[in-house]
């Protein structure tokens, strides 16, 4: 079982379909000095929500912790960039990033470099997505992100007021910019700008205390699904390759967070899918669904190849319970479809399941900007999603998926033309196309030529989400044991006896309780 009181709530809570918080704010900060950083973390520490506090708030609101439900309270989480760790004297050759933390595999390397440096070479952010076109804030040396999320606006505003007050009271802290996202109202609940339900297939994590749905984990040899090891998402725990990485106090029970602001070109998407559909007498919805792999309601094409099925989509136990062995030739869900590329499951033409399970990510996407219905002309407004990925090894999980499956064609041996990237989120080249295999005998496949780019990257950064204890230690300038991570609670250490003994403060008060 994971130490849920130690793990920040945005690592393992509130990401599944139906429980995403409706309102989200991300505040990006810079610190003038390490003292300012420590002072701010000290000030915000009581507000930081752990997974346990989140569960308590839910049971207080009479919600069964195992069941899916919306976020009942406003939560606050803190992420620190590598620049911030350096500022604190924890970066570089400091012992916190010692050799045992597996520098060689690149886990730390990605975090050290940051997204800006790796955008073009690894993440495939070229052309309009290239870093030189990013919003100016993301090209700064960001130190920290505070993420606020809540199911209702009132409690978020209260929490924001509290945060603003503490920001103002701490010298040397600058709020560089902020992002606000909001899920759409009732008929479009859970959908993103293209009109498709998002956030369905999420990895099931062993010991996370959440009910796992069929289809969420790794496909077993028979029809079952097994959850992923916690070390894939929480540092310092056993991972899928059977190892425990990141044993030191700074990292233990923490996680890495990838933030990306992705602009969506909605009118272009609707026009293009309609155009391709018109040529072959199909609907725009058909073409769009084939590109994504799910119908607008969220029903997977593998289970419902002919038409949308709202009842299937509404059932979380069924809407993800499918395998690609049932669709070997890609006639239901094309090999190049977005969901098939990004999670090939047990695709016989794809990587083996033992390989796929090393590259799973927890995703959460919150739309920003007004919704533009299909058929309307582009109104010039900026819209898209604020995309957050939780993983334990940025290079092995997020970057691998982005580099090899989205931007290259290594997710299936049937995909062989490197110009044909992920139809939905990749930056396309002039020759890009998307092929929809034909299921009807002797009928030619639909080929969507000259695929335009539908999603552009506007910025992003990598952050570490330290554990509740690590935040406390940073705030109080507590030095870790020289050996790094060997310090058990209750065992006095050389730094004054109580460094490690200090239990995490009582579950932080979730919301609406300004001090």
């Amino acid at each position, binding site marked *: 079982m994971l130490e849920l009181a130690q793990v920040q709530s945005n690592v393992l809570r509130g990401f599944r379909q139906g429980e995403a918080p409706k309102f989200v704010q991300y505040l990006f900060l810079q610190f003038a000095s390490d003292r300012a950083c420590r002072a701010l973390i000290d000030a915000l520490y009581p507000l930081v929500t752990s997974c346990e506090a989140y569960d308590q708030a839910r049971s207080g609101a009479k919600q069964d912790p195992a069941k899916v439900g919306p976020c009942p309270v406003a939560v606050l989480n803190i992420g620190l960039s590598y620049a911030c760790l350096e500022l604190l004297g924890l970066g570089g050759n400091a012992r916190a990033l010692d050799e045992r933390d597996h520098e060689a595999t690149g886990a730390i390397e990605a975090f050290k470099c940051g997204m800006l440096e790796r955008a073009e070479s690894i993440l495939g952010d070229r052309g309009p997505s290239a870093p030189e076109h990013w919003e100016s804030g993301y090209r700064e040396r960001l130190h920290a992100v505070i993420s606020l999320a809540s199911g209702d606006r009132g409690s978020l505003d209260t929490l924001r007021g509290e945060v603003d007050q503490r920001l103002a009271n701490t010298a040397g802290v600058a709020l560089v910019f902020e992002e606000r996202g909001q899920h759409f109202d009732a008929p479009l609940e859970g959908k993103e700008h293209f009109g498709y339900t998002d956030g369905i297939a999420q990895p099931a994590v062993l010991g996370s205390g959440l009910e796992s749905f069929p289809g969420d984990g790794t496909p077993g040899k028979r029809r079952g699904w097994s959850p992923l090891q916690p070390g894939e998402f929480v540092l310092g725990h056993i991972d899928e390759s059977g190892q425990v990485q990141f044993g030191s106090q700074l990292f233990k029970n923490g996680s890495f967070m990838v933030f990306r602001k992705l602009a969506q070109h909605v009118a272009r998407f609707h026009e293009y899918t309609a155009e391709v559909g018109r*040529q072959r007498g199909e609907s725009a919805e058909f073409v769009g669904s084939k590109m994504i792999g799910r119908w607008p309601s969220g029903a997977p094409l593998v289970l419902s190849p002919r038409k949308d099925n709202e009842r299937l989509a509404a059932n979380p136990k069924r809407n993800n319970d499918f395998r690609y062995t049932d669709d070997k030739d890609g006639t239901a869900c094309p090999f190049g479809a977005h969901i098939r590329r990004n999670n090939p499951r047990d695709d016989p033409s794809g990587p083996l399941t033992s390989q796929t399970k090393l590259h799973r990510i927890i995703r959460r996407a919150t739309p920003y900007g007004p919704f533009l219905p299909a058929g309307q002309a582009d109104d010039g407004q900026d819209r898209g999603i604020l995309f957050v990925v939780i993983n334990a090894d940025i290079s092995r999980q997020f970057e691998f998926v982005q580099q090899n499956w989205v931007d290259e064609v290594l997710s299936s041996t049937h995909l062989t033309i490197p110009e044909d990237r992920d139809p939905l989120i990749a930056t396309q080249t002039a020759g890009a196309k998307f092929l929809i295999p034909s299921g009807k005998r002797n009928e030619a496949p639909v080929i969507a030529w000259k695929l335009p780019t539908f999603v552009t990257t506007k910025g992003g950064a990598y952050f570490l989400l330290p554990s509740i204890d690590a935040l406390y230690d940073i705030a109080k300038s507590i030095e870790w044991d020289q050996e790094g991570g060997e310090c058990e609670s209750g065992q006095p250490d050389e730094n004054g006896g109580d460094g490690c003994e200090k239990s995490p403060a009582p579950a932080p008060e979730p919301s609406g309780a300004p001090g």
Partner: protein
Amino acid sequence: MSDHDELTPLLARPELLLSRRSAVVGVAATTVLSAGTMGCKPCFSPVRPKPPTTQKPGPRTITVRLTIREGKFRELRALLDGDLDPFEVPAAGIHYARLFTTDQRSLFVMVIYDRYEQSIRMLSDNAAGVDPIFELCEGYPPGGAADTPALNQWIWDNKICVELYYRAYNESQPVIRDALTLRENFLTFLQRSQGETGAELRALYEPFWNDPHLVVMLPKLALQRQGQKAADLDVTSKTLLRMEPIVGKGRVNPFTLLARVKPGELRKVQRTLRLGTWATIDLGLRPLENLPTLHFARVSIINGDQMLFASVYDGDFIQYVEDFGTRIAKEIDQVFGACIGYPLAGSQDVAQFKDFLRSHELQTNAFGGSYLNHTLLEIQSSLALADELECFRKRVDPDDPKLRKKLDRFLYENQLLLT
């Protein structure tokens, strides 16, 4: 049931009695059929067939170990790290070539070629590039690479034994080049002919039908499809080989590894490497076929106890390592397991295995190839499509009234070769 029982109705058919040959074929076919129904393999002779002694066509390899002259190592490294491109002049029939050093006295040259003469030809054509490098090695002919017979002798004298050679395809370089171009152009043809019927379709199909390799068809559009500059499109121009020092990460990458074999394990490894190869190095290690990103692999034993592994693979290194660890974990453990420093848990421990490979990796100083922008799957799929298209072209001519229908059917049957 004897053979004769089955043979009788066959012999009764007059068309089979036209010649003695067809009768023999009939007997043979019947034997196979009856053996098949009886559940045993057909066997015509108690003596097993001899292993083939002739070389199978396809890419072959040579590994040459050159001794660097005393005290010249720094000079050589400076040359290799500098702007000098040893393989600048294009050459025919070369798949990949690379140069690297293992220690201060050894320079290795590895070439994968269609015919041995072509590799010598490539070196002598590149005299300006390779002369400054080879001059730093012992025994280099005074006439330089331009003196082809002397160069040939020198290379031949210095070649070393290859314990294992694996190749993912048996086609020669021009065939692959043509297949890649063919698919490129066929896709362009499809794009232009989309929704067309009748005369328009016929007009578009005609140039394709006339020129099977479509080398001249719509080169501009092909360029656009690839999103490349004209100079980069080596497959349609006369430039057969673009050798270049590796700058950053390409689509196709070289990997070279040197690891010491544990004392006493050498014979076992050599046996494993040669096992199942029928004493020719052609057939190679079958398990490697399970790697969809591996073009070529070679293993040599040098200095008596060091294993030199060199491969050409596609894409990301992490992907490559994981393929080893998940697809052929057992086999790779058998071979690399004999090396000092190999992780105890074997290649399934991906992180440790990755560390092992990274720490024993050698820097490849110069690398070049004919299709650095094309992955193995792309090559294989293009070759398959080229075969299918050749049949289609023979079957359907531009005046066929059912051209659209037949084309649609062809696309349906081969839709997976177009993605």
